[in-house]
């Protein structure tokens, strides 16, 4: 099983009033373990829908996908939640940290849902915060952190359950270019350590820094961008 993600003819249609919006219209895609892939496309192309489907936040209208060998068709909401918890690490453009919880509490949250004991939660979270260079900011609330630091906390949180894929949606979009560069470098480092990284972006330059690129246009995989 060398492919961490496999999509077969995935469609996602929305009914909006009298219209059927084909957000994804037959995507077939395999991403090998340890790859570093950019999913690129203009806004409205369907790349966010694709990300939601890969992240198991959304389910396809037809077609199916396998995450780390597990087919998600017919999974209940509880099973999908379990899969998100174990296999997927999300990094969002807007960081999406829990505002009333400290950095370390944020990082520990996925472990809480995985049923990991308090002592181990703390140990792992500390280790990962140290890895992203925030050892001295662990007890701070998100509001006391800079944008780059917030995104590092989010990355530590995404990694804490040792997921099969790291799914980043425009992770540098809310950062200045210098900080964005540093975050991009962190992703590159993580990929070199063996992580499978999916990097959703509309920024061509950033996309080209990934090892491979997938272009989405009108809900289909396109040849070029």
């Amino acid at each position, binding site marked *: 099983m060398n492919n961490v993600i496999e999509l077969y003819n995935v469609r996602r249609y929305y009914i909006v009033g009298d219209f059927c919006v084909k957000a994804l219209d037959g995507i077939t895609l395999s991403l090998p373990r340890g790859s570093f892939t950019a999913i690129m496309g203009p806004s409205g192309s369907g790349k966010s829908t694709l990300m939601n489907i890969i992240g198991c*936040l959304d389910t396809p209208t037809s077609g199916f996908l396998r995450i780390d060998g597990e087919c998600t068709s017919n999974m209940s909401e509880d099973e999908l939640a379990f899969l998100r918890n174990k296999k997927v690490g*999300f990094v969002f453009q807007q960081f999406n940290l829990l505002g009333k919880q400290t950095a370390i509490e944020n990082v520990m*949250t996925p472990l809480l*849902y995985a049923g990991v004991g308090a002592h181990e939660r703390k140990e792992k979270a500390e280790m990962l915060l140290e890895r992203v260079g925030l050892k001295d900011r662990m007890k701070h609330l998100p509001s006391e952190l800079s944008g780059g630091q917030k995104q590092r906390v989010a990355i530590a949180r995404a990694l804490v359950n040792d997921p099969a894929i790291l799914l980043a949606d425009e992770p540098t979009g809310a950062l200045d270019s210098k900080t964005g560069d540093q975050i991009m470098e962190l992703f590159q480092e993580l990929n070199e350590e063996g992580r499978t990284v999916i990097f959703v972006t509309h920024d061509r330059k950033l996309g080209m820094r990934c090892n491979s690129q997938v272009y989405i246009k009108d809900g289909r995989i396109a040849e070029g961008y």
Partner: protein
Amino acid sequence: MIFQNVKIALTSMVHNKLRTLLSLLGIIIGVAAVVAILNLGRSATDSITSSMNIGGIDLVTIYPQGNNRDGNVFDLQFGDTLMSNVSGIKTVLPIYTSNTRIRSGQDVKTVSVQGVTSTYFDVMNTELLYGDYFTALDNINHRQVVILGSDIAKELFPAGNAVGSYLSIFRNQSKRYLIVGVLEEKEATLGANFNSSIFIPINTFEQRFMNMSKVSSYICKVNDGANAIDVSKKVENYLNDLVGSDYFFVYSAASIVEMADQVTGTFTSFLAAIAAISLLVGGIGIMNIMLVSVAERTREIGIRKALGASPKVIRGQFLVEAITLTIIGGILGIGFGIFISYAIVNVVGWNLSFSYGAIILSLGFSMFVGIFFGWYPAAKASRLDPIEALSYE
């Protein structure tokens, strides 16, 4: 997980102190009302019963009434008959009572003269100020000895110890009685006013007050641990069969206590029903604040779902939050209710009888309100679509 949820709930309560307090007001007032009402109800019952001074809670008194055509069953031996027919009675004291003039020196007054057995004083728990009780021998020999109640002793012998002096009791003719004892002051129990009575041996009474047709009353002491109300019912049943209900009257302090209990009980449950309505209103307040909280934290719910929280976990989080809220409301309400109880009891002058049942009931009820009114908002949170929730501003 529950601990984390309680912590999250407490954090968000601290962040919205005023809002939390306002939404808890209904619960606080409801619980305070329940606690105060139940405490005060108990205190009222206790103070009513203690104001009646039920030294005689274990006593059942029978008063023969009228003249029974079938001959007089209420004689001195009736106690033995009663004890062999009704279980649960330890002793029966026959008592003759008559209002009679007495004289000491130049003082003449009318008092209640009681003819009693020598065991009477022990059963009634009286204490002696001076002298001694008369003995069984005094009784058998029809001796003319008397024991004074404290008020009478004070009036007739203001100088002090009356023991050894003589007292004249008029009945057809005046007879001199030796004073052998003076009782200490004792509050009147129902049916016996110790302080303004004098006591002579029952046989002496029978001999001297010849035209007494029947014993005035019988005081029955129930066995240790026996229920005076049950015994009084059995006595009533027995006497109903024996002489018919017109010819006796049974009285027990316990039945008065029971009546007081019933009255305050009815009153208490009526007020408690009103308090329950305010708890219901409080519950609706909780539901409202939880719905607001779920709406405000839509994005947080989306994040938690993305991080792997299942619908069950989200529902649990908001349920625990609702329960935490209502339990804190309950604790505040209990504190407030106890405070009100103390304040009112102090003003009215009762003793506070603390009702622990009320506290457990209130806490249980708060928790129930939390679960009941928190369920819908929590279920709503658990059903949120993660994508929509994540894009919620």
